[in-house]
């Protein structure tokens, strides 16, 4: 147990340093990008016939909350704000905190991508085992080939295909949005049903786009384990098929958990193409908008969220390993 806690403490310390570095780098990189939202507004107002002085005042009123002072001063302000968990204010939606914008976008990304990833993981792993066991048969080949094909098709092609099929050819699903506006948002059956209906296509796209990778990874992992001595040993000891199968499955799935944890970390980056195509207001769309609008604070917040998620996912993967793989535990009298 103490080993686990020491491990966790080490991870957290390293994670904090990492976050510090990433925020610093992204702070300066973001601000060195050409373009300035205030200058743009100012020029627009002047073009509309306002006098330069009036325009300057108007911009100052509009963006009065915007950080001012030298770059270094802004950096110090930003970092001290961070320690108070204050990410600053969005420039494009004046008066709204960055964290509010982030959270409202995150809920549209995390649930569908999580559902899609877990769905494809489950299906991919099960079919991968099958493809490995029947690897010399026709069905095993077919599964492996379908995996390679789907793995190779870009997400947006799949998204467009699914959209064409299920909204035009067989119009049974909505083409975009998050829910039917006729339902009152809340915990009522109609709204939730509508949410699920609208989420079906994005989730299906996520699942299809990643399931090929799972099949291939699981297949090769199972094939490796099948060649291990302890599987033959278990058979020669007369172990039941079910038990031998569990030995194979548990050993084969181990390396896939790392990939799963990492892909759960990256899901916070959102899936830009899928969100665009299905008009789903998730993190990916939000990130694009913040970049086009040069919304420094929002960009910084988004990068921070993505970095934090990946670091947390890594820590989770590592801790999870110590639970499921006795060889990683270590420190308890192992050589």
């Amino acid at each position: 147990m103490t080993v686990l806690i020491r491990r966790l403490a080490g991870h957290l310390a390293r994670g904090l340093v990492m976050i510090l570095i990433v925020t610093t780098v992204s702070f300066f990189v973001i601000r060195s990008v050409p373009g300035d939202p205030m200058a743009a507004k100012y020029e627009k107002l002047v073009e509309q016939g306002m006098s330069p002085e009036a325009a300057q005042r108007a911009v100052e009123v509009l963006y009065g909350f915007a950080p001012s002072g030298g770059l270094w001063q802004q950096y110090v302000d930003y970092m001290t704000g961070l320690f108070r968990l204050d990410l600053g204010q969005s420039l494009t939606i004046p008066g709204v905190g960055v964290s509010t914008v982030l959270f409202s976008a995150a809920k549209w990304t995390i649930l569908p991508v999580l559902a899609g990833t877990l769905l494809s993981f489950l299906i991919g792993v099960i079919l991968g085992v099958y493809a490995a066991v029947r690897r010399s048969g026709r069905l095993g080949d077919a599964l492996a080939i379908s995996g390679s094909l789907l793995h190779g098709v870009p997400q947006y092609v799949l998204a467009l295909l699914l959209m064409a099929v299920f909204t035009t050819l067989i119009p049974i699903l909505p083409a975009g949005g998050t829910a039917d506006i006729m339902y009152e948002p809340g915990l009522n059956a109609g709204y939730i049903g509508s949410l699920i209906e609208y989420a079906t296509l994005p989730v299906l796209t996520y699942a299809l786009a990643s399931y090929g990778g799972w099949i291939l990874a699981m297949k090769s992992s199972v094939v490796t384990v099948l060649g291990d001595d302890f599987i033959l040993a278990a058979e020669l000891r007369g172990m039941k098929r079910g038990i031998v199968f569990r030995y194979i499955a548990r050993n084969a799935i181990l390396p896939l958990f790392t990939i799963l944890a990492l892909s759960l970390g990256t899901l916070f980056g959102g899936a830009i193409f899928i969100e665009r195509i299905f008009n789903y207001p998730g993190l990916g769309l939000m990130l694009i908008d913040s970049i086009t609008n040069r919304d420094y604070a929002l960009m910084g917040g988004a990068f921070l969220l993505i970095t934090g998620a990946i670091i947390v996912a890594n820590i989770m993967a590592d801790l999870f390993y110590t639970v499921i793989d006795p060889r990683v535990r270590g420190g308890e009298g192992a050589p």
Partner: protein
Amino acid sequence: MPTTENTAARNAGKTGNAGKAGNTANVASAMKAPGVRVDGLTVVYRTPAGELPAVRGIDLELPAGTITGVVGESGSGKSTLALSLLNAVQPPGRISAGSVEIDGLGDVVKLSGEDLRKARGRHIGYVFQAAQNSLNPLKTVGKQLLDLGRSHEIEDLRGLVRDAKDLLGRMGMDGARVLDSHQHELSGGMRQRVGIMLALVLNAHLVVLDEPTTALDMITQANILRIVREVHAERGLTTLVITHDLGVVAEVADRLAVMYGGRLVEQGPTTDVLSAPRHPYTQGLLRAIPRLLGDIGEARALPGRPPTLGTVPARGCVFRERCALRMDVCETEEPPVVVRGPSITACHAVAAADAGVDTDTTAGTATAGADAVPDAAHPAETADAPESAGAGEPAGVQGTRGEQP
């Protein structure tokens, strides 16, 4: 080295011990050390060149209660022979002819499905080479022991654990600690003893040990061999030890069988075969062992290399390419079986020496199973290409110790 007689005597004295260990395995405890008769066993492997025999026409008897050692170089087919005893030849190999009769079990070659699975572990214990990881790395030894018990419908799992602890204690280990350990927490010698425990805990009375001491250091080797010998005597087992190390056989085996190119070339009581080898291959093997005392240059390696699956001659003697006593008849005729007392040798030269003149009368009777091998399976005679790729190790069998076969 225990002879058959005093082994049997020790068995009688220790039946109480064996009975106690057998509490949980009621069916098996009624069993005595079984005799095993291998008859005309031929195992072929599917290759791009057709089905090639790895083991051909093996006739071998394991008398009940004895330790038999099978020696041979890598690729001589000894591990395939060991797996055949459990009808567990792995694809692309298959047993194409012959039978393996085990007392109380019948012909193992005819067993399949659940019957075969239940025979494995319960009637026949198999101990892997020490270098191989025969344990699931994710589970403790104890949990795998319980999996084994559940697989064989053992109801008294506590009794099984008790037996396992007894066995491990018998082999000089702390049973409770070992059962609580994962594979990576055990040393090579400890793993090997765990392997022996798992092979015996269900009270199997036929035990096959495949290279039990390979990859272990000398002291651990000696320990494992002592354990094999003692456990064999205490529990009343029939034991088959597969090895490439003549020293191992000399240490434990009552009987010795020498394999070459998938054939049994000589077998008999260990002392007879080692002190007066008759087959030129056995003689060559013994000459190749460096002596502890005297000139190291006295050890002479056999010339040439052992044949591989593709280069084993389809007709005639498999050893002729490296044989000093080679005759014309070796090219065309199967070596005759020469029986002298308890020893059997398959060699034209030995037959000629015994009979004085005529070898033709006995030729071709060496192996019943040989005829079952389809001719089409054999490539043209390629045995005169000894440098062919992957041709295995040099002849000094002792020198190969520690290598993976």
